[in-house]
């Protein structure tokens, strides 16, 4: 059977569509740009579906592998492949891209073509990050994806976008540079290979591993983001347009977490085990400390941003428990957070488009004037609070169970998210949606449009599907996670 190069398609269909949108763009013909972008994003999602249907869940081998020479002089290759860990992220990214294009449909009036193109190109680059098996190729995609995100925040962002951009830059720059050094070092000691999978087999001394760990850790911890390198995220979210926040929370945060399982755990397993306590501590601080911080936020987007950090703490916690349930729980949490955070930011977007305020205190009693929206928002609030039956429960539950198995107190601290998560989410819901109509502007609100309804409705289906029947998702992971844990268990010293 000859298969189409699905991974290349997943990367290049959105990028080429984005470039096409830019190329045919005329300011008068906004509709054409929108439709072309929608077609491009749907096509981009369509080409990823065979990745699921043709995926062989029984093996940990890389699948859909594509290998081409790129820069032969340095043995840099165009090497792509997915396993049970990355395939779901590609699907998630392509799915969210469709929603983002749809979400910006009539909301964005300024530079529509550029906006749509930025998201499409971003989507392709992110698929590149999740599928690249060559260190240089990964680095190119990893750095490249920052450009559209900068532009999205910088052009369509809020008033304080310069500060946010500088902050974002300061954080990511240091990390990226260190990672580049690590990649080049690995190239030199592996005898001239940039293949990530070959690096898995590379013997390394503990001292080297620790140094490599630190270099990679910086790059990825900023992206996740982990405490204490998290403070760029709330500012970036606040300044970003709705679509930007959705992609930022749903996908780009996953790049950091993905780096942990693709690079850190298998390449420097001894250092990972040696420093597991450190990572677990930071993760638990993220869960508890950030949970408290989220409680007192006055800005809805900041609150959800902090909630994201707290939930991503579960991902890194799960990974460093080194058990199947922990790693799979972390991965499930990544997918779920992709749905739920996207939905939460879309909900804020629905309100922001009408009221041009993100402050909780400007709202009150929205349920009176927007009952359908209130029902949808309640659903997502409950998903964010980790209610069983929604996707938000699955990953959290798995990680808590895995943590208790390692140490009772780890589970104890992790489980506080059940109280804190419910507290900050539902308290916000109470102040925004419940109560009497707070002011005339709330009184004049119109309920969700058909477009907004289906946008959120699609995510309801996704959240319920993962919450009520996660088996089809987790079954994909088993073989790859087992393999990953085998790497972690095997000393490279």
């Amino acid at each position: 059977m000859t298969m189409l190069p699905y991974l290349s398609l997943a990367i290049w269909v959105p990028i080429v569509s984005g470039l096409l949108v830019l190329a045919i763009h005329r300011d008068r013909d906004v509709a054409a740009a929108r439709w072309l972008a929608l077609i491009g994003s749907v096509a981009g999602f369509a080409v990823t579906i065979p990745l699921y249907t043709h995926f062989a869940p029984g093996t940990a081998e890389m699948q859909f592998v594509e290998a081409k020479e790129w820069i032969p002089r340095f043995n840099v290759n165009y090497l792509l492949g997915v396993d049970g860990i990355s395939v779901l992220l590609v699907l998630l990214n392509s799915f969210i891209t469709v929603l983002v294009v749809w979400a910006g449909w009539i909301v964005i009036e300024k530079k529509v073509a550029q906006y749509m193109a930025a998201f499409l190109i971003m989507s392709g680059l992110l698929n590149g990050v999740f599928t690249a098996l060559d260190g240089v190729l990964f680095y190119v995609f990893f750095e490249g994806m920052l450009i559209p995100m900068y532009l999205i925040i910088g052009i369509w962002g809020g008033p304080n976008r310069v500060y946010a951009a500088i902050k974002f830059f300061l954080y990511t720059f240091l990390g990226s540079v260190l990672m580049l050094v690590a990649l080049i070092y690995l190239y030199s000691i592996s005898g001239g290979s940039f293949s990530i999978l070959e690096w898995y087999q590379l013997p390394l001394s503990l001292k080297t591993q620790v140094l490599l760990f630190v270099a990679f850790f910086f790059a990825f911890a900023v992206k996740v983001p982990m405490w204490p390198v998290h403070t760029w995220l709330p500012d970036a979210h606040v300044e970003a347009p709705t679509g930007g926040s959705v992609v930022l929370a749903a996908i780009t945060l996953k790049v950091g977490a993905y780096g942990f399982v693709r690079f850190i755990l298998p390449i420097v397993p001894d250092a990972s085990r040696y420093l597991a306590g450190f990572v677990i501590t930071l993760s638990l601080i993220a869960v508890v400390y950030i949970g408290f911080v989220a409680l007192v936020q006055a800005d809805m987007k900041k609150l959800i941003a902090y909630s994201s950090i707290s939930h991503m703490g579960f991902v890194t916690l799960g990974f460093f428990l080194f058990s199947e349930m922990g790693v799979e729980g972390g991965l499930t949490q990544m997918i779920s957070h992709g749905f739920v955070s996207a939905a939460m930011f879309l909900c804020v977007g629905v309100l922001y488009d009408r009221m041009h305020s993100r402050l909780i205190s400007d709202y009150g009693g929205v349920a009176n004037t927007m009952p359908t929206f209130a029902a949808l928002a309640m659903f997502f609030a409950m998903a964010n609070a980790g209610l069983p039956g929604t996707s938000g429960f699955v990953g959290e539950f798995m990680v808590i169970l895995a943590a208790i198995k390692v140490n009772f107190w780890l589970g104890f601290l992790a489980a506080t998210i059940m109280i804190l998560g419910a507290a900050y989410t539902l308290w916000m819901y109470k102040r925004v949606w419940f109560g009497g109509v707070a002011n005339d502007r709330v009184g004049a609100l119109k309920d969700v449009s058909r477009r907004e309804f289906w946008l959120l409705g699609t995510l309801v289906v996704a959240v319920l599907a993962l919450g009520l029947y996660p088996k089809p998702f987790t079954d994909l992971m088993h073989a790859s996670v087992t393999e990953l844990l085998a790497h972690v268990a095997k000393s490279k010293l």
Partner: protein
Amino acid sequence: MSMQQLYLLIALSPLAGAIVVGLWGAKLGRAASHWICILGVAVSFVGSGFVLRDVLAGNAFNGDIYVWMTSGNVKFAIGFLIDPLTALMMVVVTFVSLMVHIYTVGYMADDPGYTRFFSYISLFTFSMLMLVMANNFLQLFFGWEAVGLVSYLLIGFWFTRPTAIYANLKAFLANRVGDFGFVLGIGLIVAFFGSLDYATVFGAAPKLATTVLDVGAGAPWPLLTAICIALFVGAMGKSAQVPLHVWLPDSMEGPTPISALIHAATMVTAGIFMVARMSPLFELSDTALSFVTVIGATTALFMALLGVVQNDIKRVIAYSTLSQLGYMTVALGVSAYPAAIFHLMTHAFFKALLFLGAGSVIIALHHEQDLRKMGGLRRYMPVTYATMWVGALALAGIPPFAGFFSKDAIIEAVQLSSVGGHGYAQFAVTAVVFLTALYTFRMLFLAFHGEERFGHSETAHIDDDSAKQLHEEPGHEEHAHGAAPRESPWVITVPLVLLAIPSLYSGWAYIDTVLFGNYFGGSIAIAAQHGGLATMREEWHGAVPFIEHGLLGLPFWLAAAGIATAWLLYIKRPDLPAKIQARTGALYALLINNYYIDRFNDWLLAGGFRRIGALFSDVGDRSIIDGFFVNGSARLVGATSALLRKVQSGYVYHYAFTMIIGVFALLTWWVGR
């Protein structure tokens, strides 16, 4: 139809009703919506009847419906365990739910959220059925949280009221504190048993009876004690045991039908059911059992005291519910699980009856809930009055009403127990008999007897406490006060009568089977050393001797004394209560303020959490991380560049001068080498 299909039909038909009405209620209209939901629950009720008959014939079922997920060799599944305990719960839940569905047609008739309400209560019925039918801890937790969700939605049903949305948030969070413990318990089970399946866990439990859990805090904890206490913390949230009871009185903000269904008859008994279901685990830890006993006794005693001073008719019944849940918990603690479930059943009937009767009064008085503005209603509402008497006699434990049997059984079981704290528990459950009769008949006399106090001007004395409890429910037209109250329509009175019947007879009719027959079989385990119930079984000679024996016992006379006291204070000498209240100012203040627990929680927990959050946010994030490190780095870069920029001034003589210094320095170094 196979039994398995029947189980699915029972669980799913209320869900189908909830979904259809929830999504398309507005289009379907009111009549179609309530018929769909009532039909769904009626199917469940009839089906549950068949299941009970099947179980009585000796059949049982334990099997998975589908595998939810597998991970790390642990199977997470959705499945049913149908045994006598489950079947009994199914019948009770669906019966009370059906009554409440019918009653709602009358009670919520004028409410704009009519179809939404039906959707919620059908969803609740589904969730509760999933909870009691579970064969594993995952599904138990699903149902557990789902009933909490519906409770949250229904307490906040009138979401424009500040008190309602305060109460529902409080309820959800208090329940989450309980669920936090519950999840830890489940986590320990998975960690040590490697399974979520009841049968597997119960089978392996005796082998782990001596296992200890190293928690790094000096002495290790016995594993099963830790598991049982953690699970019981979950029960304390759901079944509102001290100190997690704070949400239940406030939950009365919700419409009365759900106070009856969720916050009296079914959901709050989920914790009781859960512990009974886990009896094979609890029996292995005497420490956990005495913890359960002490918590239950404390709840029974201190909440009954609060019931005596309440002026809101629903709050009287709410505190009574707390106290009665305390009874059930004590029964669990002394290993009399069948007695707990038996009291759960009779209580479900008579407490739902009392709540729905109170709702009938509230409707007749145009949403007046203050007992001080009632009185003399017996002339206007004969059916409600008669059925409320049945409910009150059952609650007070007067033979031959249902509550007498179940309550006396618990008191006797406590007497025969030797678990830690049984002395305290014995005092509590005995003393509470008097208090129960007192507050119950105080309510009955204030509402139905004495002079008619309704219809007076609104400017009558209202203290701040009752002002808080006064509500005008939205969606109802304000009728002129002072018009004579009328008996409620048949959709309200028929459920009252149908609930009065089991409140009357279910005690003597079923005590033989449920409590002393071997009805529960293997579904409840009692260790040999906890033989109180077995002793009672040996001494059991039938319902009539039980009544004769009861008539000679202290509890009966305490109940009679309670009724007599209520009669004296509220009918014979209505001037006395105010005098007593004046004499006992401090005690009264303590009781009317719920021991100041709410204020304490608001200050310590709600306030404290926000203060911690503000500290972390302002100092941790903004000052230290952002202020010092991030912006500090930015300033450092800025300052360095500013310094370096001075070097590149663009003036040739600056560069020339720098070059000369450089050359000079190099030469010095070269020469001095």
